[in-house]
């Protein structure tokens, strides 16, 4: 490969790459501007140095460490999953139950989606797979009441973590968002500091709407972390970067399949390398 000098076309290529990864056009323009500035400041002359530089820039945005779940040993923790329809909430909860059980924690699932057809049965299947009990009521019952029940059951059974499913909802539906606020209030009233985690589940194929989702779910539910699902497809999930940059919400886990093991703690380096098509080792070497 011949050496290529820095030119506008090169920066345009990187802007295209970021846009195609769904970081959003405005954000892509901003980061490529930053990159130009840094390249100038550091006296970068060759094309090959640009991607590693962008890699560093994005890692600065994301932070280099994974953000662990805020659950507290020795006391009951409550975790909520929230998000738009079909993002992967229920599946993520099943995987998370399995993961936490594997770490030696006692877990209980709450079937807080009382709306969608088959949602309770779906969570029930995940409960059996993860060998975790599911607290459930009838379809159509009040989700906050299910969460209340699960917390009471969790307390009396000496459970470490209660994982609560919620129905998918679009963030522009005020009444449905108010329902989340109620669930939150009930959890907070029952357990100090609850909910300890509110995980916003986002499908990696989502475009710019993800940012609005993060804003509005944060407002109603107090999101503490993002789970980026379906990263086993080809979508890059670039909106997670933009959410981190604009709202400061970290990604905590990624979903990489439909199996129970297919949930991984978020690794910023792997994520950025996949997005930029950089090789981790090469990226580090050059920086």
């Amino acid at each position, binding site marked *: 490969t011949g050496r290529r000098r820095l030119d506008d076309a090169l920066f345009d290529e990187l802007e295209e790459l970021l846009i*195609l990864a769904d970081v959003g056009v405005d954000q892509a323009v901003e980061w490529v501007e930053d990159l130009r500035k840094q390249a100038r400041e550091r006296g970068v002359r060759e094309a090959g140095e640009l991607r590693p530089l962008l890699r560093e820039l994005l890692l600065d945005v994301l932070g280099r460490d994974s953000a662990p779940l805020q659950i507290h040993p020795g006391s009951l923790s409550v975790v909520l999953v929230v998000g*738009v329809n*079909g993002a992967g909430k229920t599946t993520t909860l099943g995987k998370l139950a399995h993961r936490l059980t594997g770490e030696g924690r006692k877990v209980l699932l709450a079937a807080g989606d009382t709306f969608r057809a088959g949602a309770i049965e779906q969570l029930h299947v995940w409960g059996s797979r993860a060998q975790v009990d599911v607290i459930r009521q009838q379809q159509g019952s009040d989700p906050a009441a299910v969460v209340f029940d699960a917390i009471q059951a969790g307390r009396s059974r000496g459970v470490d973590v209660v994982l609560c499913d919620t129905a998918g909802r679009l963030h*522009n539906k005020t009444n449905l968002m108010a329902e989340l606020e109620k669930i939150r209030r009930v959890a907070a009233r029952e357990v100090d500091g609850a909910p300890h985690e509110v995980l916003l589940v986002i499908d990696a194929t989502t475009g710019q*709407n993800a940012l609005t989702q993060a804003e509005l779910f944060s407002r109603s539910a107090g999101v503490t972390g993002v789970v980026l699902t379906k990263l086993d497809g080809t979508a890059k999930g670039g909106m997670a970067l933009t959410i981190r940059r604009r709202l400061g919400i970290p990604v905590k886990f990624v979903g990489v399949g439909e199996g129970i093991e297919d949930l991984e703690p978020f690794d910023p380096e792997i994520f950025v390398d996949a997005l930029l098509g950089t090789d981790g080792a090469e990226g580090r070497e050059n920086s």
Partner: protein
Amino acid sequence: MGMFEGLAGRLQEAFARLKSKGKLSEADVDEAMKEVRRALLAADVNFTVVRDFVARVRERAVGQEVMKSLTPAQQVIKIVHDELTALLGGKPSTLNLSGRPAVVMLVGLQGAGKTTTAGKLAQWVRKQGRRPLLVAADVYRPAAVRQLQTLGEALKVPVFSVDGDADPVEISKSSLERASQEGCDVVLVDTAGRLHVDDALMEELERMKAAVVPGEILLVVDAMTGQSAVEVAEAFHGRLGLTGAIFTKLDGDTKGGAALSILSVAGCPIKFAGVGEKLDALEPFYPDRMASRILGM
């Protein structure tokens, strides 16, 4: 949104910076095209699709007389809107239910809305005076069959399912016999969500297609989808030859530029819009409204 917000407002600003004249010059148009490009990208239209689209609009816009009643901004908006509407299919289109039974297969990525849409279509088809049979051919997702059965019960529409580890190809094949036994003349096949890069599962769809020879193979797409809509549509279309698409979750606040991406690669019409979780929340897809939505007008 008002007339001068979004793209319209930005175009107006762009033209205000230029000195407007009787005809749109190349410089005028280039300035405007930057704004058009940005607006389309911000609406999640695929990068490559935007590039081709902008080139086409540019060609049309250069040298146009600015009509007396219109400002240059409105002129460009009109060209963009017309081109978008044309690309999105012009007029709404409907389902082909000509076979006896007519077979409709729903395919797409995980969580797009296939099962719910199958229920909605059952209701719609019945309103056309037909007798639908819902077919539970998703044997992978936990409680997928239960989900479809619940929808069938709510609608009082029969649901065909097979207990145990049945193969989706076998299920869909035997559903045709069941349809004739039950006097159903429309068969709606709900398939499992799958990634377009999952070779084995994509191949399974090809075998299902061969087994039931559907008159409609509809790609169900989440309206919030971003840049990857193009490769998803390409893959499903390449394997199956899509006859149409259904766009879901349009009750949200997404611009929905993925619609344009899908049409650009698959060329088949978008036949319906999903606008809610309830079973009656299905509307015809109106290309001109979608164009306005993408442009933020």
